[in-house]
């Protein structure tokens, strides 16, 4: 770790990130979100985390996959090239962990998702350890630590006043850090304590099995009846990655685009013939939570929730993970 004053750190980062797009948390109206700016910024003390995480800068809300053009009965196809070198700055550990999870999903065999991976490879992640919790976060309950680096190339630890510690966790990170003047030093960083600590019904390792045994639990219905079938939770969730594909036609030429989808939306799994394996909110809410806490762990060994707390804070009908765990745990309410 190197110690540095804030203004020096910004200058150094700006220099290292020359020629890249800077994606930084920006406050718009009352909401923080990741937006393109000309460089890194100093955060005011009220920055906890962004409402909308940096996910969209790696897996955009929509992006072309390919362009096509018909001429007579023949068609020509050009794959899309949609990446720019970028720095995503000020990412919190929960979102860093989420990016690590997305990386592993997108890289999974037999069909690695090259479009994501290419964009990811051209991205430098500058993380920022948490010194204050936001009102709904519960990362430690999910085994995520508020000072851990996860997918970050560089990690910033706010220390006293203007002083920051910076550490590198990748090749690029080390290259950048080498350009920062200053000595390696140790500094005590005291991370934030998350606002919520979930009463977990079982250990994280046993959670998938615990949930699978409750697949037919009436608790799902008691949780999901008030779900309005919007995609808010999935779109805000840093680990939700489901997408759909459709064609945008402009009269014989056009593009095939991939866009965010959400398993809570009513049409998500409805087949052309009308059959839907998940026809009501009960199955859909179950799918979403089970996917995070049971199915994905069974597949790739990791829980797909990093405790960022966004679904708790923003679901307009108060449907969230803690409620699910409690309802399934036998509390009848």
């Amino acid at each position, binding site marked *: 770790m190197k110690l540095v004053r804030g203004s020096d750190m910004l200058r150094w980062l700006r220099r290292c990130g020359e020629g890249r797009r800077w994606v930084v948390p920006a406050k718009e109206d009352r909401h923080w979100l990741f937006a393109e700016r000309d460089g890194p910024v100093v955060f005011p003390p009220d920055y906890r985390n962004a*409402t909308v995480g940096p996910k969209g800068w790696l897996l955009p809300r929509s992006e072309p996959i390919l362009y096509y053009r018909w001429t007579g009965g023949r068609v020509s196809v050009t794959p899309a090239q949609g990446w720019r070198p970028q720095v995503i700055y000020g990412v919190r550990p929960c979102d860093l962990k989420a990016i690590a999870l997305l990386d592993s999903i997108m890289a999974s065999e037999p069909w690695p998702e090259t479009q994501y991976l290419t964009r990811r490879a051209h991205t430098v992640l500058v993380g920022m350890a948490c010194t204050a919790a936001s009102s709904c976060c519960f990362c430690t309950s999910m085994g995520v630590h508020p000072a851990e680096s996860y997918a970050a190339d560089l990690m910033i630890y706010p220390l006293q006043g203007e002083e920051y510690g910076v550490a590198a966790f990748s090749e690029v990170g080390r290259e950048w850090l080498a350009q920062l003047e200053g000595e390696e030093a140790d500094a005590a960083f005291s991370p934030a304590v998350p606002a919520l600590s979930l009463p977990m019904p079982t250990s994280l390792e046993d959670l998938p099995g615990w949930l699978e045994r409750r697949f037919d639990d009436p608790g799902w219905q008691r949780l999901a009846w008030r779900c*309005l079938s919007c995609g808010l939770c999935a779109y805000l969730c840093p680990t939700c990655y489901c997408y759909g594909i459709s064609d945008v036609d402009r009269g014989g030429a056009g593009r095939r685009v991939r866009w965010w989808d959400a398993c809570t939306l009513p049409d998500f799994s409805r087949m052309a013939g009308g059959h839907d394996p998940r026809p009501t909110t009960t199955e859909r809410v179950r799918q979403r939570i089970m996917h995070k806490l049971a199915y994905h762990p069974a597949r790739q060994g990791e829980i797909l929730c990093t405790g960022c707390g966004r679904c708790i804070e923003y679901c307009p009908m108060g449907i969230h993970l803690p409620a699910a765990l409690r309802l399934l745990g036998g509390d009848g309410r």
Partner: protein
Amino acid sequence: MSWALPAVDALAARLLEDRLVDAVLGWARDPDLPWQRYPHRVDEPSRVGELVWDPFCAPGLAKLVFRMTEGGLKLGVLARGCDALGVWRLIHDRRIARENVYLLGLPCPGMADGVRVWEECPEAFDAAGWEDHGSHWVAVPTGIRLPKERFLLDKCLQCQVRWPRQCDEVLAVQGGSWNPFCEDRYRQVRQLEELPLPQRFDFWRGWFERCLRCFACRQVCPACNCESCSLDQFEPNWLEREVGVATQFIFHFTRALHVAGRCVDCGECQRACPVGFPLGALNRKMMKDMEDLFGVREPFVPQESEPLGEFALDDPDEFR
């Protein structure tokens, strides 16, 4: 005025005991999150104690009534002004059968932003009950005062329907429709109308970039109750899935137009939007135009007919 929770409970219990309804829809405390109240349904008179009525009952209920009563369930609804109008919107749209709902009107002094209170004054949640003192909510017995100016939910700041209208029964406590916090419901609309055109577009474009198109605004809206939203259809492709300025424009334009003359101004869309898109500024623009152009009085109160499904021979002709 107090938040007469025991009276609410008693009324709910009576409805269930008299078998006037099969269930009562209200709010309950979230055991995990002190500030959270979520929609809650009670089927037994003995369980009405689970219901809560205090300044944190943020979620609107109207849209839930729609799906709940679909199978013929008779539902008692604890309805504030906004909930009642929402339910009436759905009744006029023939999505709720009038005989399936019993509207139990609750005069509403405005709801607080729970998360905000939690962040700034967590001890407020130790209250056993609440009183309304006009400009403040006051916790009983702790006496903690929460200024509304600071904590009122956005949707409640602009509310015009604190008094529950067109209900089967209204909990007889004091209250009125007057909202001291809303001087001019069209203030933001007027401000935007006065901006030069390019700035107006920039204003909206900024929001288009933030809108995630998660459709929370649509899903909570009692006026958005179509069997199949045209925006979800692939054929015709009213709205492409691709997210860009043009498609966001079409999305918000279509949504505004489809609720024009039908929006009950419950503010739920605004509350649900995670990025704070000023949906109310679109909805109220439509309301204002309904008033200005077609002389629709109280454009937020659902009527049998809707302004865009009618015409008058002397409608203004502004196209020259």
